[in-house]
């Protein structure tokens, strides 16, 4: 028997990031038979997908896809999930890495039953990042209903306050441990897959589009939360200024993307996201008018093209070729007027709407904070995969802007790359 035909002797794979790409890489590698550590810096898995209302083009809820993945994790003893985990340092060479990990305290242990008594006991309301600050939550909270692991978290902001003490007292199961400290330890790994994902580009930086200045200008990710049944409005799409139902909505495409003053690249998903969000509005408000301002509409592939064609048939969805470059607000009605040149007719137009959605693009997480490993990045912060060197790979949106389908395909491929590194050892 030659050694090539043997199963790998040892070594595990570290996957950094528990969004859809990281989940896929971890599960695919584990299901082949490899040991995987899945590290997630949030207190829950699912990443950006967990914040969506529906996937395009099938318009099914993402919780469905996440649930299947969570099930696969639970059934697989080879995956170790570490939430609130951050990588501090990576040393070593392909096949032999030492990964220093820091686990931030959750202040809630495995005895938690999600009864919610701790949250009720808390008084202070804190801004809810999961909903982009559109509502508040208590200092003790469950990130969202489907959170995995299904366990409450205490915000570090309430530690040392009365709220923390009250939460601990309210817990009947002795699940709250206010003495929990950050832990650091090393993991040995043969390969590392970086699935560190993306962040919505900070719309405040696009100063001519009025985000942060006018109430009724929101981002596409905020729209997902507004439309989501577990969102701040329980799925009701309303104007932030007065909670009124919008009679008209403008979508501003390429808000920050394909713009060398912001993100020079196409973020790939925003056209489809806006088309999808148009269906959110049309479904809820049959009389609402939708205006989509675009440079070019990109619906790659036959399925997306079909989705686009269906929406184009809707007489209440208007497509205008011309980028919005100016916005203004009527101080009395809080309606927003967007200004663009219709490049087809060559006329400047001013469209007044109740709600403006900025189709902001995706920025790789590594663009704002470089990862503590010897990785190569392009000018925009996406990790460049060096297959020659091997050992460490980027999957999903850490590597390039992508939709969920492409991320999953790419993540599966990177699982194989990681396995190859171990098998070659």
């Amino acid at each position, binding site marked *: 028997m030659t050694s090539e035909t043997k199963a790998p002797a040892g070594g595990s794979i570290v996957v950094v990031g528990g969004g859809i790409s990281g989940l896929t890489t971890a599960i695919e590698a584990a299901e082949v038979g490899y040991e995987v550590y899945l590290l997630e810096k949030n207190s829950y898995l699912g990443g950006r997908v967990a914040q969506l209302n529906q996937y395009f083009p099938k318009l099914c809820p993402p919780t469905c896809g996440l649930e299947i993945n969570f099930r696969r994790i639970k059934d697989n003893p080879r995956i170790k999930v570490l939430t609130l985990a951050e990588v501090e340092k990576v040393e070593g060479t392909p096949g032999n890495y030492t990964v220093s990990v820091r686990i931030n305290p959750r202040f809630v242990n495995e005895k938690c039953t999600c009864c919610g008594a701790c949250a009720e006991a808390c008084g202070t309301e804190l801004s809810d990042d999961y909903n982009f600050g559109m509502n508040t939550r208590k200092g003790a909270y469950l990130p969202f209903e489907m959170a995995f692991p299904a366990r409450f978290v205490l915000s570090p902001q309430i530690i040392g306050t009365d709220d923390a003490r009250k939460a601990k007292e309210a817990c009947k199961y002795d699940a709250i441990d206010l003495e929990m400290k950050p832990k650091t330890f090393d993991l040995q790994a043969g390969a590392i897959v970086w699935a560190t994902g993306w962040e919505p580009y900070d719309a405040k930086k696009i100063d*001519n589009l009025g985000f942060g200045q006018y109430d009724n200008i929101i981002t596409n990710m905020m729209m997902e939360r507004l439309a989501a049944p577990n969102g701040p409005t329980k799925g009701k799409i309303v104007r932030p200024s007065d909670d009124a139902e919008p009679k008209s909505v403008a979508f501003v495409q390429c808000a920050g993307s*394909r713009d*060398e003053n912001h993100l020079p690249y196409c973020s790939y998903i925003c056209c489809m996201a806006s088309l999808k969000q148009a269906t959110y509005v049309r479904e809820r408000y049959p009389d609402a008018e939708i205006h989509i301002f675009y440079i070019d509409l990109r619906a790659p592939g036959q399925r997306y093209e079909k989705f686009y064609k269906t929406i184009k048939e809707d007489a209440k969805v208007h497509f205008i070729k*011309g980028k919005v*470059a100016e916005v203004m607000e009527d101080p009395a009605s809080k309606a927003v007027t967007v200004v663009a*040149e219709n*490049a087809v007719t*060559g006329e*400047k137009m001013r469209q007044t709407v109740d709600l403006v959605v900025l189709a902001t693009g995706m920025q790789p997480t590594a663009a704002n904070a470089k990862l503590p490993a010897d990785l190569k990045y392009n000018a925009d912060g996406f990790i460049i995969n060096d297959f020659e060197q091997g050992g460490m790979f980027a999957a999903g949106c850490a590597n390039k802007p992508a939709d969920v389908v492409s991320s999953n395909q790419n993540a599966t491929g990177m699982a194989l790359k990681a396995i190859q590194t171990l098998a070659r050892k």
Partner: protein
Amino acid sequence: MSDSYFVDPDVGFIKEVSQLGGQDLKKCFQCATCSVACPISPDTKPFPRKEMIAASWGLKDRLVGSADIWLCHNCGDCTALCPRGAKPGDVLGALRAYAISEYGAPKILAKSVNDPKKLVPLALLPAVLFLVVGFLCNILFGVQWLNFRPGGDTIVHANFFSTWLVDIIFIPTFFFAVVVFALGLKRFVADIHANALLEGKTTKEKIDPVGFVQALVRTVPTILQHKKFTECGENKERATPHMMVLFSFIALFIVTNIFFVSLYIFGQHGPYSQLNPVKWLANVGGIALIIGSGMMIIQRLSNKEQVSSYKDWWLLGLVFGLGVTGMLAQLTRLGGLAGVSYFIYFVHLMFVWYLFAYTPFSKLAHLVYRTVAMTYLEWSGRK
């Protein structure tokens, strides 16, 4: 908009526009941000998005005869917001330079003014002209209009370079420029009107001269007050030096006319006393010219966003040189440096000659074309 349009690209035109400062033209992807970013672009058929596509397609005829390229004041608001760095502001500047050459005649002179390789011959041309005409007059009329040994206790520039010689050269040069402009404007006005009708920018079929002159009267205060400049966001500070230069030109034009009238009607020769109010006006104008153009040069050097090409430095060099040589000629005269002063005066006259002879072909021609284009906009009532 016609249903079909046969695109006949003029590749040479695209290349020339690139060389005149529009080198980033092809980066444009037609998002139309520029047309909205522009604070002075009209709502009907706004610029510069349509100019960007027409230029990159080489549609020369749509651009050269369009008033819209002249409505742009190159403030740079579009360039600042442009997501591609295509610099629409500079492309329009390049298109204007191209249009100036197109409406200028003789064509060889028009092209030479924008050609860096022709700088030295064009710069030396008046020196040769002065010497040839001066010596010819000396010989033919038995005069000393060009006198290299003026002598005398006080320095009088006219003793070296006679006012007769100045006028015999400069008056025909001035009228040459006027004729070039008149011929250019005749075609220009016809073209911009035809273009406006074609693109639906006006509903008025025929230009009525009275209405046009009335529109001019309404436009001039806008220009003098630099109202369009101050609407700009970026490079707003350009308005002040531009205003200084424009007003000093006006002041120096007035001074020159006063000198001319007093010389030929009242027989009063220069140099004037420093206490004479006309002298005050001349000096204030000269100082404003130097400071204004100096500020513009500094701004251009420090502005990394904006393209500065030959045509821009040409004009700034001319204006600055004009001011500096004029002021130095006076200071050296007052300082009693006879030889130096006469030499600088000669150079100053060269600069004045550039101003007269080359204006119809240089960037300075915007004085005429932009004024007419703005008047046309006012007349057409386009919003």
